[in-house]
């Protein structure tokens, strides 16, 4: 693997050069104009296009939203068709012609968010839209140096200096940067950015040392690999019938913010929209927190009770998904903890589940 050494000016040059042929996104500071907002953080960073040489905001934790919208947009048009009378192709479904084909680079993606793309790729492996979006999007990750208050990436199998899902992984060392070029897409970006000098052996050892040091700062309550295996070995019904679900669900108001902000929640709904004689079938985020999610036409609802829905979300993340695909469906970013209006803490739920005999 190629490792490069860059100064901030080199990175800025890369971003500017990439922006000539691609859309470059990074976290930028946003301010809430809504004075009624109850959010404590009136100012936050979120994904925005980097124009006019703007440098991404990398100092303060995670951007408000995950990067799933670049791979699983809100909404995605699945197809269109004509509804016009006399049109021989009326009601014939066609792939949308005006798909967004712009190549994109996401700069400043943290290891948890980068890893979420790999996890979501498991259920979406054969999904033509997700795969097309993935093919046109490159991820330039930045490893973590500080730990967010609500971070628990290591508990669920991630790492603050992990590179899973990244095309280029950038690590800041004092006043310069090291870039590990991981994929061909990453190599292409380096060429387009105008290259950089190869790192010296000494710099590479400094990178390793720095990563090891950060890794050690991020403690984990348990051995993550062991926790995963323990959860897979646990009896489904023992977890499903655990005594804590009803108490946990009591405070939940089923607002769904956890699922919308979760990088690895990927449930969707499909609906038709009709505008001026054209029908669009779209898919967009749905949430298993909502009673309508499972309501049948007959009126029967398999998860009509709140406790069933709350349980389903956590069981999916920590039992159903790992049983089917291997890893937990959680990257430990902590957004759901940060934004939950009633302070439900997924770390506590994980701990409780691991304690079930």
């Amino acid at each position, binding site marked *: 693997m190629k490792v490069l050494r860059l100064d901030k000016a080199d990175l800025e040059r890369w971003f500017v050069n990439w922006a000539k042929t691609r859309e470059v996104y990074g976290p930028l500071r946003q301010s809430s104009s809504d004075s009624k907002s109850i959010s404590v953080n009136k100012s936050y960073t979120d994904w925005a296009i980097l124009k006019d040489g703007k440098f991404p905001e990398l100092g303060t934790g995670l951007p408000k939203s995950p990067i799933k919208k670049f791979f699983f947009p809100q909404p995605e048009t699945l*197809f269109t068709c004509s*509804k016009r009378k006399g049109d021989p192709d009326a009601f*014939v479904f066609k792939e949308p012609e005006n798909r967004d084909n712009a190549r994109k680079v996401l700069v400043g993606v943290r290891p948890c968010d980068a890893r979420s793309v790999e996890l979501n790729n498991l259920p979406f492996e*054969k*999904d033509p839209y997700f795969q097309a979006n993935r093919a046109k999007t490159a991820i330039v990750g930045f490893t973590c140096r500080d730990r967010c208050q609500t971070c628990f990436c290591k508990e669920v199998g991630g790492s603050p200096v992990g590179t899973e899902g990244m095309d280029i992984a950038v690590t800041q060392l004092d006043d310069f940067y090291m870039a590990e070029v991981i994929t061909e897409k990453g190599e292409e970006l380096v060429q387009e950015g105008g290259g950089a000098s190869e790192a010296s052996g000494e710099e590479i050892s400094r990178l390793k040392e720095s990563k090891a040091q950060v890794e050690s700062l991020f403690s984990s309550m348990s051995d993550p690999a062991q926790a995963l295996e323990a959860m897979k070995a646990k009896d*489904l019904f023992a977890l499903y019938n655990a005594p804590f679900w009803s108490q946990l669900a009591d405070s939940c108001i089923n607002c769904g913010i956890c699922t919308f902000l979760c990088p690895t929640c990927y449930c969707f709904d499909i609906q038709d929209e009709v505008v001026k004689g054209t029908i669009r079938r779209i898919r967009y985020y749905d949430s298993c927190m909502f009673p309508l*999610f499972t*309501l049948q036409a007959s009126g029967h609802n398999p998860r009509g009770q709140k406790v069933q829905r709350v349980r389903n979300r956590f069981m999916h993340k920590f039992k159903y998904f790992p049983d089917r695909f291997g890893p937990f469906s959680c990257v430990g970013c902590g957004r759901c903890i940060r934004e939950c209006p009633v302070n439900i803490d997924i770390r506590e739920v994980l701990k409780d589940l691991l304690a079930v005999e």
Partner: protein
Amino acid sequence: MTTLLPNPYIPYPARIDDIVVETEDGNLKTFRLVLEDEGDRARWSHVPGQFAMLSLAGVGEIPIGIASSPTEEGFLLFTVFRAGVVTTALHQMDIGERVGVRGPLGNGFPVDNDLKGKNIVIIAGGFAFTTLRATLLYMLANRGDYGKITVIYGARTPGLLLYRDELKAWAERDDLDTYITIDREAPGWDGLVGFVPTVAGQVAPSPENAAALICGPPIMIKFTMPPLEKIGWTDDQVYLSLENRMKCGQGVCGHCNVGPVYVCKDGPVFTRAQLQGLPTEF
């Protein structure tokens, strides 16, 4: 233009070729659909018990069991109960109009493996006879592959029975035992009277080298099991078909999960033994 993988979300265009009003209340209609594209028709291949998404552009999609047997070529049958937005819109459509078909989806009954060589007992109630019709026709077309075939089918009234002409024809065959029943006495009905579980208990099909395929309202299934269990039937011999709200049909969108399984992809057919290992979220 980015090339997409084979796209499972795009339905095949199809024409409504015929519509039969099945029940006296008009709430059930059978739609005969013909795929418009010759390539689609040639590629289409399903197993009894599978379903498809019927797609009404501008309205939505619904998962409906395929009522025609793979041995009936050139068309597909869907018997649809008018219940929600899309089924109501479909009921208002006419012969010749265009719909979309996405499928076949799901696993279907194991007619070519586990069920082969077995005595088959089909138990159905109300309008849940659709994919069992497909299965029965398939078995009759491959009659030598199965042992004794018994059909127990009931509805509230004679007018609510599906496929009434076929029921008469089946009753006359000597390679098939049919027990058609209605809940209460009705004028002009000289057949069996009684609930499906009661009739199943009276028929008492032997569990020896046998499999039961049961579709019907949950209450019927609940009361059909005790008389069968009493004469030695076990959960791994009993096949059930589930219905849950669905959207993608690919096991991705999350709507139809029952614990770790997706009804659309891992089902809709499960043995009762498999269902005992799952939460009852259906």
